[in-house]
């Protein structure tokens, strides 16, 4: 059975691009969320195998959402999606429990590497 992934990004276009890459690689994208608060609610509802999490989002950012999700499930697997120049935020997210990160714009090879590693 293919692994189930929740894609979180405030940019609809980036959600579409990443979902397309993941689906083509054989993963099942079970849901989308446009901010951290929606991501936490969808995580509770869908219990995905992995979450891809944008950092800068309105309402609740990705770092706070990682902390909330890890409070719900200590074993939750999360890969951060960062933009250029967000190294300090990535470090904070990793300390909060994220497993890896990918940098926008997404290189399909790097996406697969990070997702596969986080799911191993």
């Amino acid at each position: 059975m293919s692994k189930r992934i929740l894609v979180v990004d405030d940019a609809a276009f980036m959600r579409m691009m990443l979902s397309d890459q993941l689906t083509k690689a054989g993963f099942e994208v079970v849901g989308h969320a446009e901010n951290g608060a929606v991501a936490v609610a969808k995580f509770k509802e869908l219990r995905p195998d992995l979450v891809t999490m944008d950092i800068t989002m309105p309402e609740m950012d990705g770092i706070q959402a990682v902390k909330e999700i890890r409070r719900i499930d200590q074993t939750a697997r999360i890969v951060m999606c960062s933009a250029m120049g967000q190294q300090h935020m990535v470090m904070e997210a990793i300390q909060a429990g994220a497993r890896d990160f990918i940098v926008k714009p997404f290189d399909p090879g790097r996406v697969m590497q990070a997702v596969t590693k986080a799911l191993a």
Partner: protein
Amino acid sequence: MQSVSLVQLDVMNEIGNMGAGHAATALSLLMGRKVDMAVPETKFLNIEAGCRELSREGEVGVGIEVGLCGTIDGLTLLTVDEASALHLLEAFGEMLAGSGLDDAMAQSALMEIGNIVTGSFLTAVTNFLGETSSALPPRFIHDYFDAFVCNVVVAGCGNVDGLLVFKTELRVDERCIASDLAFLPSPQAFALIVNKILYSGGMS
């Protein structure tokens, strides 16, 4: 108006070109196209002249406004004329085929371009100065240049009567994209940038 020396402007132009190099690589990966970007000239202008520089009288265009937080705070405004914005959408191929500028997915794609360009320039600036800054979620604007440029510039300049305009040369698949990037630092960020460039060797 605050002043910036020619040497400081030259340093900013070099930083702008570093940012343009990063942006071209990232945009090329995003669109799967050949992208070139350079900053042949950087201008420091007062609000009135800045509005004139960025506006195209009577023309409708697109603006992507990105707020900045951190020690280098303020905002950036990427302006693109309508024909160029549509060409950028075409460059995404099937994904955005037939999309107009009022389409939500097309606006999201253009905001991502604004994010990438701002992030690339911001990284170049913060790396050079040894400071930190982060971009906030972008805002999409589709309106007459005269209207939105002045609104953003006047609101964004705060107590600094000046803005930096990076005159960009952006090419996607050899086609010229008419765009400029304005950088409007807060008064504190402006003072920090000017002082750090002054003492960074840029004035030696």
